């Protein structure tokens, strides 16, 4: 049970970062940490102690495997995480080009 609580703590660290940091790159890093904690949580849920990796081979019966469904869900989500991160970073560098800063308070002041 401790591992679930620890991964939830990691999610809280990410949420704290998104709400309190004022730098765009820091916000992107915090969002990445939230994503990582959710991947970890899903992989932890599907684990069965003593289970094997879900790949059939001689000598492994189908009863002693970890759950393949959360793994398939996380597999695609990791790729999406990279693509959305790249898109957030491009928005950040376009804002930097226009305003010369990553500070979102200053971008708010300079709008127009």
């Amino acid at each position, binding site marked *: 049970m401790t591992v679930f609580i620890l991964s939830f703590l990691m999610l809280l660290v990410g949420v704290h970062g998104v709400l309190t940091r004022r730098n765009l790159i820091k916000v992107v890093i915090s969002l990445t940490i939230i994503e990582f904690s959710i991947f970890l949580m899903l992989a932890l849920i599907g684990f069965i102690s003593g289970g094997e990796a879900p790949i*059939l*081979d001689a000598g492994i019966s189908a009863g002693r495997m970890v759950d393949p469904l959360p793994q398939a869900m996380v597999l*695609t989500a990791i790729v999406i995480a990279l693509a959305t991160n790249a898109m957030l970073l*491009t928005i950040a*560098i376009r804002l930097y*080009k226009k305003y010369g800063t990553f500070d979102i308070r200053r971008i708010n002041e300079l709008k127009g």
Partner: protein
Amino acid sequence: MKGMSLIVKKMAQLMSGLIFVYGAYIATHGHLTPGGGFAGGALIAGAFILMILANGSGYVRLKRQEEGSSAVESAAVLMALLLATIGLAAGTMVFFNNYLPPGIPGRLISGGVIPLYNVFIGIEVAAALMTIFLALVIYKEEISK
């Protein structure tokens, strides 16, 4: 973006081919071993990114490359969609129907349509990551001018 020293360039030339072959292996054996189209495509994109980082941005004629990778990406998604739509026509009317014979698990040619999907999604992921990276490199060239 300037290239690096001669040693780095030579090592990148030697290694990127091996990384490319490993990515293709991961993508085509996705139904037998860990990996699959997503991981294989990312490895193939990594081989190209390594070459560009080592040789500098003069290595490729950038504009045309970005258009090419974007076109390849679109074509690969279209092919995957087409493969799924054929399932509607073949046999029972189910989207994403596995209409080819499943074969014996463990052989290279098995799993029905799954290896084909893996290959096409590998091409798509590789082209998408290449497009994102090349767009950033082109942006860097344009603002430094």
